[in-house]
């Protein structure tokens, strides 16, 4: 693990501001705390409110609408939002990985086009990586990018694209040169595809709950101008890997069911129940530890490192922890889950149970992450 991190003193002030804002929002009844909000809590009004307060794209330089803040400041804001169960899905991908990736690999024109909107909470992005035959084996993507006059033409199918039906654009990973069996990672490129481009078709793939979250995005000779190539042609694999580093160790990898844990504590206190200290303590000790680990990685990312192994470990432990909360919530009190409830414990529990399969799949499955850890241990 990277060395432990202490948050700078000014983080306390920022945290207090975010808490005060969240308390106001809750008092006004603007939204109800939910489980797994970063997946399903799409609320553009709330996202714009955050943008106005300078809490989106915080790490971007001021000339692109950001605050030039440290990743640790962003960490404080995001962990507060997640712990409160606030609806953060609309800006989640754009704020977490698109902004930093555009800053790193994008052209000046691309940055000017997208970053201010991301920081304002008005421009939303998806992730165009997975395909029907390319899940864990992402290098197997088959979407083709053909060279044409002034740009590229994309043909193929992306799946599991979260929020594509509401997002403005995504980065599509596509094969820009024929597959070379001796170097499967070569010949891949990333393209910024605006989702209202001609030839893009977006179809819902309902979740097991019936909710519309996932999509299939089909490209039929979609023209992408040269100005919308992200980074270098042929460097898609390296870029995508660096994008994934932002995806794996953040507080969303262990806080998806935190609102349920808080509600569980509330129910136990209300019922005057005793004898559950050990179970609750075990969850809280784990939570505290995960947060220290995740913060250490955020600190390491902030100083320019890419702690891939540690990030994989946090995501493996953290997503299993999210499931442990569900077990405790089922076993320590007997309040049945109710997916139709407006909010409260029954709804928090219902959403947590029904969303749980995704925790250990999204962003790289836990088995694949353990493969990364095994490589870090020198076994592969």
């Amino acid at each position, binding site marked *: *693990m990277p060395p432990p991190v202490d948050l700078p003193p000014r983080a306390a002030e920022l945290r207090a501001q975010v808490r005060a804002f969240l308390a106001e929002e809750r008092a006004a009844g603007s939204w109800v705390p939910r489980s797994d909000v970063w997946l399903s809590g799409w609320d553009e009004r709330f996202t714009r409110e955050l943008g106005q307060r300078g809490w989106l794209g915080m790490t971007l330089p001021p000339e692109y609408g950001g605050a030039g803040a440290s990743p640790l400041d962003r960490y404080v804001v995001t962990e507060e939002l997640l712990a409160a169960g606030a609806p953060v899905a609309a800006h989640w991908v754009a704020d977490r990985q698109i902004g930093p990736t555009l800053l790193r690999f994008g052209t000046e024109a691309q940055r000017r086009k997208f970053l201010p909107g991301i920081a304002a909470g008005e421009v939303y992005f998806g992730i165009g990586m997975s395909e029907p035959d390319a899940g864990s084996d992402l290098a197997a993507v088959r979407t083709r990018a053909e060279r044409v006059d002034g740009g590229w033409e994309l043909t193929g199918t992306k799946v599991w694209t979260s929020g594509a039906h509401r997002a403005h654009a995504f980065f599509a990973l596509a094969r820009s040169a024929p597959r070379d069996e001796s170097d499967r990672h070569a010949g891949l490129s990333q393209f910024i595809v605006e989702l209202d481009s001609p030839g893009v078709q977006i179809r819902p793939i309902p979740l097991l709950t019936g909710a519309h979250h996932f999509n299939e995005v089909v490209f039929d000779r979609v023209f992408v101008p040269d100005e919308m190539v992200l980074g270098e042609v042929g460097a898609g694999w390296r870029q995508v890997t660096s994008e994934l580093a932002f995806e794996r160790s953040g507080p969303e990898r262990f806080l998806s069911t935190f609102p349920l844990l808080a509600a569980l504590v509330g129910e136990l*206190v209300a019922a005057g129940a005793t004898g559950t200290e050990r179970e609750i303590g*075990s969850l*809280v*000790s784990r939570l*505290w530890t995960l947060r*220290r680990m995740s913060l250490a990685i955020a600190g390491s990312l902030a100083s320019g490192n890419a702690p891939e192994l540690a990030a994989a470990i946090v995501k493996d432990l953290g997503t299993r922890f999210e499931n442990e909360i569900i077990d405790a919530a089922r076993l320590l009190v007997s309040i049945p889950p109710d997916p139709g409830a407006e909010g409260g414990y029954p709804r928090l529990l219902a959403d947590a149970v029904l969303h749980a399969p995704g925790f250990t799949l999204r962003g790289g499955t836990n088995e694949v992450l353990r493969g990364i850890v095994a490589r870090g*241990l020198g*076994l592969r």
Partner: protein
Amino acid sequence: MTDTTDTTATGELAELAESIFAEASGTGTAFDAALWKTLEGSGLARLTLPEAAGGSEGSFTDAAAVLTAAGAHAARVPLAETDLLAGWLLHEAGIALPAGPLTAATGDLDVADTAGGSTVRGELRRVAWSRAAAGIAVLTPTRVVLLRPEHVTITDGANLAEEPRDTVRVDGPATTAEIPPGAAEQLRLRAALGRALLLAGAARGALTASVTYAGQRIQFGRPIGKLQAVQQQLALAAAEVAAASAAAWAAAGAASADGMTAPSTRFAVAAAKARAGEAAGAVARIAHQVHGAIGFTREHDLRLSTTRLWAWREEDGSDAEWNAEVGAAALAAGADGLWPLVTGRP
């Protein structure tokens, strides 16, 4: 996978400690007198004590570097006992520290003041390393007591790792002093912190041994470490080691920054000992599974790490006990106070 290291002074200290303990590794159960001499010579034996007590004035984070290395190499010395517990308690109470290794105990002794000093009588159970100690610092309900070897009778006992956990009987003279305020609570937290760091080290030791073995043991024509089932198990163990280590280091950091008795440190130490204790069982189980039958033998060194994991998770408060404290704090905080409790200072 190594412990948290960096390029700072703590990083250098970690390297020094690592080389000293690696050199000293060996089997047997007796006090390692040669190692102790090296530790004294290099200023590690009384790392966190003030200069006035013959110490090096190091921080708890420095202690983390040294104790995790001691745990990783199954060092047979009462290091946490001397530095974090007995040395601290005696110095705070104003009792001069005897030279050499020390140990500490909490227990009920009868203390009677006489004209020439104090006499004490009673029995202490499961005292760590007492047979090797130049002095036993005892926190009784009424006094801090220093027992010298010539005034005690020791009956050998052991923990699961065959480390000395002796019964000590005393009926004779002793040095005593008033109990410094808050000493009982601080001693308890110091013991748990030291044990959590040792556990994190032992967990790392067991993982390192397992990864090395998986790279050497050939079955089906290749190292078992190439088999995905084995890799997945070792990755799970690595995650537990990382968690134990992060928790113990974070608790040491909290103690360094805020002091041992700050509420945030108390919470951190409780969570860290609990988390490290929970990791211990998983790491020991996987380490043995990966080693097969050879690891189940007395001849093999794996047991030096795994028996310590099993012994230490019970000592200075088991994970069940510390989790109960963390849970009580969480329930006292309530639904709205839980998150602020976890994030510590606002």
